[in-house]
């Protein structure tokens, strides 16, 4: 009798788990399964401190790649992330935006700090040597290519944004162009709220 009761409880528990999984709301971003640990790095932070992802354990991190002279993609991305933080209101403090440059020749820590402050003073930029940044891009599959322009040069780069959860796992990749509401939706899910 006791064994039968245990069996029933196990079956009910499994069924409840399956139902929870089926009901789990999907992210708007592309989801990695199984998630892996987000590769950590050590760069010069725009806030003057060493920039390591592990600094933000406990927060959701939106990791973007770009450069401060970017004429179109980066301003849209950073504007969307600023709006996301605003829409999250109190939960906004649990979202950290990290913006890693693909143009170390021009983007020093001071320039990144000034640029990012135009969007949100909490955003942190990362710069370093070309070799350091190459290694970070390789770890995340980010493409960046210098393109000559009449004004000098520009950098064509991947425009998707990685979402890293509180435990430092690379959970999702939001393609360029999604509205702030999609980020709000996903950040809330990743925060478990």
């Amino acid at each position, binding site marked *: 009798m006791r064994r039968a009761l245990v069996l029933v409880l196990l079956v009910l528990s499994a069924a409840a788990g399956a139902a929870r999984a089926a009901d789990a709301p*999907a992210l*708007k*971003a*592309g*989801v*990695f*399964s*199984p998630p*892996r640990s987000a590769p950590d790095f050590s760069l010069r932070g725009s806030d003057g401190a060493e920039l390591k992802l592990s600094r933000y354990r406990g927060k959701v991190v939106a990791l973007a790649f770009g450069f401060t002279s970017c004429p179109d993609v980066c301003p849209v991305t950073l504007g969307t992330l600023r709006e996301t933080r605003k829409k999250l209101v109190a939960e906004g403090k649990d979202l950290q935006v990290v913006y890693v440059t693909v143009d170390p020749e021009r983007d020093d820590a001071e320039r990144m700090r000034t640029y990012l402050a135009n969007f949100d003073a909490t955003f942190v930029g990362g710069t370093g040597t070309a070799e350091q940044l190459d290694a970070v891009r390789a770890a*995340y*599959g980010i*493409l960046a290519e210098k393109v000559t322009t009449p004004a000098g040069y520009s950098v064509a780069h*991947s425009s*998707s944004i990685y979402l890293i959860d509180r435990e430092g796992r690379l959970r999702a*990749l939001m*393609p360029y*162009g999604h509205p702030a509401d999609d980020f709000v939706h996903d950040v809330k899910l990743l925060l478990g709220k």
Partner: protein
Amino acid sequence: MAAAGAVLLAVTGWAALAPIRFDSREELFEIPKGTWARRMSGDPVEILPSEIRLVLGLRDVLLLRNLDDVPQTFGPALMMPGQSFRLPFEVASSYQFACTAHASGQMTVVVEPKPETPWARLRWRATRLWKAQRWR
């Protein structure tokens, strides 16, 4: 002659009126085990087409799976061995992704609106049939 006309009419009527169905909303592409080794030996393995067409509300999720033994950049995502990447679309549009798997360095995902009218269904089925014949 009359019979052929009747069959053609019936087929056209079905193509225009029958709702379009898919068994799953996911369009799956897999990198098979050994792909990297084949590429290294000079075999230009093409797994992901340079243009993928999806249909909103019917087949609007791109599912990429890396079954190879090494990390692979597949479309927009770097995936570890055994990892998959599931990307849903909610807006009909044309999406460009940087992709090292293609010589052009680009991959396009075209998400078409759901064919709701008889004419749209007919056109959608005819286009699909034409493309299937073309690639045969």
